[in-house]
């Protein structure tokens, strides 16, 4: 792996928005190390081919750095037929292939373009990579006039280019917001990736989590007994911090609510603090809930492979709710998990809901979540906001006074759901110092962490840090202006990817989940006096640092 060692200033100086002199179709692609993520391991692909027939193919040892990608001999036919099938299945794809006027309004909206200056990272051109083949294969003018209409023949180099650039798109949909016709590059990227999968072109950082999630219930491959160990470990930590033993029922039948969160929250800093936060919150209100080791994942990496795979992974949520007899599902802080829940879940799997499932009602406040009456699934930020509004939480905001917070809207809850005010309401109720980043970088205009859609892997760190420039720069702005030292977010991928991003672009800013901050402020019945936060850092030292 190429070690990434550019300093921030060097990276900034290397950005040039002037396109090369050569026409984009004849500009060769750079397959140097560090420009691509490692391909999927053959055994993972074999497993998935067995579990989800027709979606994956061609398991083998290969490397994108090699000249020979060991494609199936009929790969052109596979891509052509797959393309045709999807043009007929999705109006979105067909319309998006036809109506782009190349006005360029999207060009400077993509974080990868902003950070790299590579013209193929302009959403319009990223889609043209696919559109050019569409013109050649599926339009009369393209067939006759060819290159004059921007059409080109599908060759191996084109397929390789797809791999390079459709894995430099985090499906964040920021370009779609600015497009006069709503062309959504995420949709184009999803289709391109489906076609690549049919030829056995994929990345391990997606394939392994998908395979794991199918078998063990979560991306990380945590087996049930290990899951329980981790949870017990966190319960110990909560006891150390609060002097109180809270509960986390696992796989238990007969509870009202099943709580599902991304497994990143179980596994790594700072997600685990958010996870502890959920458990403390549930203890404080006496929620009748269980978690499941079988459905121990909310995030759905299937979304990054194919619609079928997404459906299969998502279906576990209802299956487990039924088995355990839960009435509704409470969902943790996660980005693309909520995209799947909000836009796809009921359409794909609604028929799997058992008769016991009900429109979610907050058992503590009696609030009916009518906006979730079909999916039966409530976001924890909505749930906590409701608790706060009804005064059901005993909060001591001053415990978070060492924090000067800003909020990062995660792309999916922001642009594929529209959950903007709920987390802010919660945050402002648990923290006295809150500052917004500049307005063109927040809410629906939020910038991606550059690690979404399965790209949060270290071998492409330069690409991630370049893509992280817009978010990092906005963060640095509030860091300098308001002394912001914490960026809160409601996405597990963010909690993982924003850390190197902040270390690089705005060193000194820490990343926190929303419910970590809630739990810091939350006073539990019968707790002992808190001297430390959820990270077991002494308040005394933290406040002393802040005063300096």
């Amino acid at each position, binding site marked *: 792996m190429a070690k990434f060692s550019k300093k921030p200033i060097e990276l900034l100086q290397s950005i040039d*928005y002037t396109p090369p002199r050569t026409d984009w179709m004849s500009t060769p692609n750079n397959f140097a190390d560090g420009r691509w993520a490692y391909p999927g391991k053959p055994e993972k692909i074999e497993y998935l081919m067995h579990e989800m027939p027709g979606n994956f193919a061609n398991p083998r040892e290969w490397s994108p750095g090699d000249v020979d990608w060991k494609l199936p001999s009929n790969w052109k036919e596979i891509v052509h037929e797959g393309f045709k099938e999807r043009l007929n299945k999705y109006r979105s794809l067909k319309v998006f292939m036809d109506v782009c006027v190349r*006005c360029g309004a999207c060009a400077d909206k993509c974080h990868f373009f902003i950070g790299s200056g590579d013209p193929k990272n302009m959403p319009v051109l990223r889609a043209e990579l696919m559109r050019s083949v569409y013109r050649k294969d599926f*339009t009369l003018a393209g067939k006759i006039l060819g290159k004059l209409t921007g059409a080109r023949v599908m060759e191996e180099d084109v397929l390789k280019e797809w791999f390079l650039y459709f894995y430099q798109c985090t499906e964040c949909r920021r370009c779609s917001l600015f497009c*006069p*016709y709503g062309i959504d590059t995420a949709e184009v990227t999803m289709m391109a990736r489906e076609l690549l999968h049919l030829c056995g072109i994929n990345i391990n950082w997606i394939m392994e989590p998908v395979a794991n999630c199918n078998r063990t219930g979560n991306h990380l491959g945590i087996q049930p007994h290990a899951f329980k160990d981790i949870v017990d470990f966190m319960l110990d930590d909560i006891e150390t911090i609060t002097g109180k033993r809270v509960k986390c029922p696992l796989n238990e039948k007969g509870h009202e609510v099943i709580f599902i969160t991304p497994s990143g929250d179980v596994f790594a800093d700072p997600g685990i603090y958010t996870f502890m936060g959920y458990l403390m919150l549930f203890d404080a209100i006496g929620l009748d809930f269980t978690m499941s080791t079988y459905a121990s994942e909310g995030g759905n990496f299937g979304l990054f492979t194919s619609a079928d795979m997404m459906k299969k992974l998502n279906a576990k949520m209802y299956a487990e709710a039924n088995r355990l007899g839960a009435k509704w599902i409470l969902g943790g802080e996660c980005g693309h998990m909520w995209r799947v829940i909000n836009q796809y879940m009921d359409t794909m799997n609604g028929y799997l809901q058992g008769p016991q499932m009900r429109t979610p009602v907050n058992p503590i406040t009696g609030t009916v979540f009518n906006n979730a009456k079909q999916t039966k699934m409530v976001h924890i930020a909505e749930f906590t906001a409701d608790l706060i509004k009804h005064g059901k939480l005993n909060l001591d905001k001053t415990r978070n006074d060492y924090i000067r917070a800003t909020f990062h809207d995660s792309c999916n809850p922001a642009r*594929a759901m529209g959950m903007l005010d709920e987390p802010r309401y919660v945050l402002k109720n648990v923290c006295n110092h809150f500052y917004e980043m500049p307005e063109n970088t927040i809410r629906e205009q939020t910038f991606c962490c550059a690690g979404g859609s399965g790209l949060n892997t270290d071998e492409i760190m330069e690409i991630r840090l370049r893509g992280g420039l817009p978010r990092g720069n906005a963060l640095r702005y509030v860091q300098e202006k308001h002394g912001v030292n914490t960026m809160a977010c409601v996405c597990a991928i963010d909690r993982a990817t924003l850390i190197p991003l902040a270390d690089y672009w705005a060193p000194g800013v820490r990343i926190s989940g929303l419910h970590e901050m809630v739990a810091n402020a939350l006073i539990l019945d019968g707790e002992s006096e808190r001297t430390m936060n959820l990270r077991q850092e002494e308040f005394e030292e933290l406040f002393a640092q802040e005063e300096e």
Partner: protein
Amino acid sequence: MNALYSLVFVFALVLIPLIGVGAAKLNVFFGICIPSTALLVFVAGFVCKVYGWARRPVPFRIPTTGGQQEPYDPTLFKQNKWDNPSTGPQTFMRMLLEVLCFRSLFRNTSLKLDVKNNVVAYASAKWLWLFAIFFHYSFFIIVARHMRLFLASVPMPIEWLEFGDGIMQIGVPRMYMSDVLILVGLLFLLGRRLADAKIRYISLVNDFFPLFLLLGISLSGIYMRYFAKVDVMAIKELVVSALQFQFKVPAGIDNSFFVHLFLVSVLLAYFPFSKLMHLGGVFLSPTRNLPNDTRMKHHENPWNDKGIMPHSYEHYEDDFREPMYEAGLPLEKLPEGAEEEAKA
């Protein structure tokens, strides 16, 4: 290069009727045959294209949400109804704003990278929106004004439009504002394509050609009206006779009219097969024309494969029964020998 090809091509298109009518005297061919064929191609092509889109399913609701969702508690959070609609009427408003006001384009920002001060800045950039509005509205008004050529008695709204368009009362014949603004709009769109390196890089012949064609149409129209001062009554006679399937072209119509008409014919025939179909496409864009209500309402995916089931819990427990038992996790089925063990 792409711009040059397009320019040369449009020039060639201008020459065709000049030679065809001026030298070869093919008045009926250029005055009636070509325009009526082009009109047929336009209508049939447009309908086919829109039908082709409309018959394809929209399996999932994928609106781009540009604001606060419909909250569970409207007293606590205010929904952004026009950018994140959850009902039909709200979605209709969103589309209306999109189609009539180019709302998404209005949001446009431009990027500035200030390396020295380590700042990435975004400034509002409404130029594209403004000139796109100039062009599209002028085009619309001009097309509407032309309706008087097709109709025996001119309806009041078109009279008003024409009156409003010429209200500045400059020159004889009175100058139409739309004639000026369409040129301003087109020249800006063209200039932007040439001047902005990024946009030039992505511009194809398909992008320059319609701009030059529209410029040709506008300029020939302006020439006819203000300089050649063509015989409008004769033209109306031609149009009306053609509509009655009498293939007769009155004498004395200036050649510039045939150039204008030929270019319009090319535009009509080209339209359904080009990016100009964004006119129809904008209405069918699934990220804009759907309400964000999938958590509240069921929607059917016509090709949803119900055969796809999750990896079952039974399989999962079979895989991990022993360690689950040892960890004290509840089980559907105890491992072999566990009951005896418990009894002993």
